[in-house]
Every structure is written in structure tokens, then in C-alpha cells.
């Protein structure tokens, strides 16, 4: 397998490049998994934390906020570690790590804020994906500023008025699902 340096990895993540993402996964996932599982997590937690850590890296790159002075391994370990400590705190579990063998850096406050925003948006996106296909399309199209008239045409609705009603219903369904998630109340705190 080809090897990539930090710059190439970051550029690959920025471009959403599947080859680099695969490389990142194959090279670094095992460390994160070992860390999570050794500290009261399971396979699923490891998968989620690693994924969200990469999304946080992507967000930082998108905002041009990322300047890494350590190896990618140290960086992704540090972000995953931060996210997992927060999870442990939320689950009211002791957040003393029994195994914490890798090097890590202290992350700045912006990264902490970003990870909170990421968690919030992740929750909203999760429920968005769970909506019926019909609702998802209506909301996506209105987000793309496609007019109600054309939404009605594409979806085969009888009128613009119905498209408008449907759009509101879908949005309310989404908002309700979000509000009913126990995580939502935690996030508001």
C-alpha cells in the first residue's frame, strides 16, 4: 500500500478522496479502536468516534483552521481522545483512562467548539437521513432554492400549495424527531 505524508493525507480528506480515506482507515483505525475498547467502549463506539474525528478534521480543513505540527497519527488520536472523553462524561462514566499509550496534544478551544457543533449537526443529519425519501427530497430541493412550482412538478404533487404544505410537514417531522432524541436535551445544556 502506498504511504502518504501529513500534507497528502490532509489534502485527501479535504477532497473527500476515497483512496486517502481508505489509507487513513487502514493505517490509523486500529489505534483508535484499541484506545476506545480499552477505555469502556465497544466496536460501535470506536467506529463512531473515528468517523466523527475525521469529520472534525474535515471541518477544520474546510475553515482553513488546521495547522498540524505533529504526525497525523498523533493528531487523529488527540481528536478521538477528546471526543471519547466527552462521551464518557456524558455517559456519567469515570473519565479516567486506563489505557492512554499514544502521544497526544492538547487541542485548542476552537476544536472543542467545532466538535460540539459537529455533534449537533450530526444528530440533525441523522434524523434527516431517516426521513422518508419523499420528505428528504422536498427539503433538499427547497434548500437548493428550487421553486415550489418545480418541486410540485418533480414530486408529482397536484399543486404548489400542496408542495408548500408538504414541505412544512416534513420540516416539522424532522424537528420533532430531533427534539425527541434524548441527546438533544444534552446538547442544549
Amino acid at each position, binding site marked *: 500500500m502506498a504511504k502518504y505524508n501529513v500534507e497528502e493525507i490532509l489534502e485527501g480528506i479535504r477532497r*473527500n*478522496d*476515497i*483512496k486517502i*480515506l*481508505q489509507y487513513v*482507515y*487502514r493505517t490509523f*483505525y486500529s489505534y483508535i479502536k484499541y484506545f476506545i475498547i480499552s477505555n469502556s467502549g465497544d466496536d460501535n463506539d470506536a*467506529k463512531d468516534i473515528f*468517523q466523527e474525528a*475525521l*469529520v472534525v478534521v*474535515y*471541518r477544520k480543513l*474546510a475553515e482553513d483552521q488546521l495547522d498540524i505540527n505533529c504526525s497525523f497519527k498523533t493528531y487523529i488520536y488527540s481528536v478521538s481522545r477528546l471526543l471519547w472523553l466527552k462521551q464518557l462524561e456524558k455517559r456519567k462514566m469515570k473519565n479516567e483512562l486506563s489505557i492512554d499509550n499514544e502521544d497526544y496534544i492538547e487541542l485548542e478551544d476552537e476544536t472543542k467548539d467545532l466538535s460540539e457543533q459537529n455533534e*449537533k*449537526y*450530526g444528530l*440533525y*443529519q441523522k434524523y*434527516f*437521513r431517516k426521513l422518508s*425519501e419523499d420528505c428528504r*427530497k422536498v*427539503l*433538499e*430541493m427547497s*434548500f*437548493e432554492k*428550487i*421553486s415550489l412550482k*418545480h418541486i410540485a*412538478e*418533480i*414530486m*408529482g404533487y397536484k399543486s404548489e400549495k400542496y408542495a408548500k404544505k408538504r414541505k*412544512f410537514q416534513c*420540516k*416539522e417531522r*424532522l*424537528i420533532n424527531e*430531533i427534539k425527541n432524541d434524548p441527546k438533544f436535551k444534552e446538547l*442544549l445544556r
Partner: protein
Amino acid sequence: MKQQFELIERYIEGDLTKEEAKTVEQLIASDPGFKNEFNLRLDVNKAIGEKDIMELRYKLSMIHRQETSHSTAIIRHLFEKKWHLVAASITILVIIGSFLLNNLNNQGPDQLFEKYYSSENAVFTTRSGENSENSDLTVGLQKFQKQNYNEAINLLKKNRDNVVSEYYLGISYIETKQYTEAKAAFHYILEQESNLFTEQAQWYKGLCLLKLDQLDEAKQLFTSIMNSNSIYNNNASEILKKIN
């Protein structure tokens, strides 16, 4: 409550009169509950708009699945619907969106050209010049979405020489087990300069070749997918292991 929510949504969309908008602004300033509701709705809109992030998560989940599952019996499952439906649902909105914006919005042709012209979108731009409504394509795509593949084929066939209709035509042919026709549709896309559907077209053409038992050609195609940056490169390499 419902009325309040509707008011907020309409405010966000700029669909209120000046007086109504002022009322909303006052409520945001004075009522913390109302303000939270407003912020939530704004954030949800932003989150829905993050297609790149959703795509990244999708890719990462796919990689996770690929890396953790043992690739048993993959060829048997190749024609499972979910593969192309997932791919299609990601692309279809983008396509319908750009198609509509180019064809139906009441913007001047010059602005549209400036806004949308690139070699990738040239297909749509050209077509909009020829035909402003192009309803066979629109209705054909609707039929496709509703999985009425035979009807979709009849409509999309009237619109050949267009990568969008060829792509959905190809999938519809696969759905109705007409693999030779499907292969031709994907082949057409690969011959075009537009790279809108190249990854998908290569992939589906390869699958058709498997079904048609044209293995030499299939191997060649999957090898080039495997060596490219395609989202299907892992799958292609798994297939190659099985057929070699």
C-alpha cells in the same frame, strides 16, 4: 405553537410582510424560548445543506463496512438493488437540480451560462437551448424514482444522446434484465466527455459484462476501476479476485 413555528419558518425564507417580520425579530430579542426555536431551525437548515459532510460520512461508513466484512459471495450480491439506489439517490437530486435550474428557472440565458457553464455541465446547457421543457426526461426520471422501469425506459428512450437519460436508462435496463441494452447505455456515457457519471457508468458496465459472461472485457474494465480513484475501486478489486 404550530403557528409560531410556521412564522419562524416563513421568516427564515423571507416570506413575511415587513410588519410580521418585525414581530418575529422582537420575539427573538425578548423571548429566549422563541430564540432557541429560531436557532434550532436555522441550524437544521445548515445541517441539511452540508452535502459534503454527509458524503464524507457515507464514504467512511462504506469503507468501514468493506474493511470489516469478509468479502464473501460478493458477486452474488452485486445486483442487489441497494448499490445503485444509493448511488442514484446521491446523484439524482444534483442532476434534477441542475437540470431544472438550467431549463426551467426564469433566469436569462446569459446569467445561466455564466453560472453553470463548465465542461461538465455542457450537456445540460446545450439541451436547454434545444428544448425548454424536455418533459419526457422529467417524467421519465419521476417514473424511475417510482421504480416503474418499463415506463421510464419508454420515456427516456426518446431522449437519448444525453448522459442523464442514458444513465437512468441503463439502470432501468438492468432492473428489467436487459443487459445488452444497459451495457450500451453505459458505454455511451463513457464515450462522452462529461464525467458526471463516469464512475457509476464504468461500474455498471462492468456488472453488465459479468452478467453477459464477457469476462475478458470485464476484467479489463474492473482493473482500470481498481487502479483509479473511483468509489468502486475496492469492489472492483474484490471482483477481480473472484473471477481470476
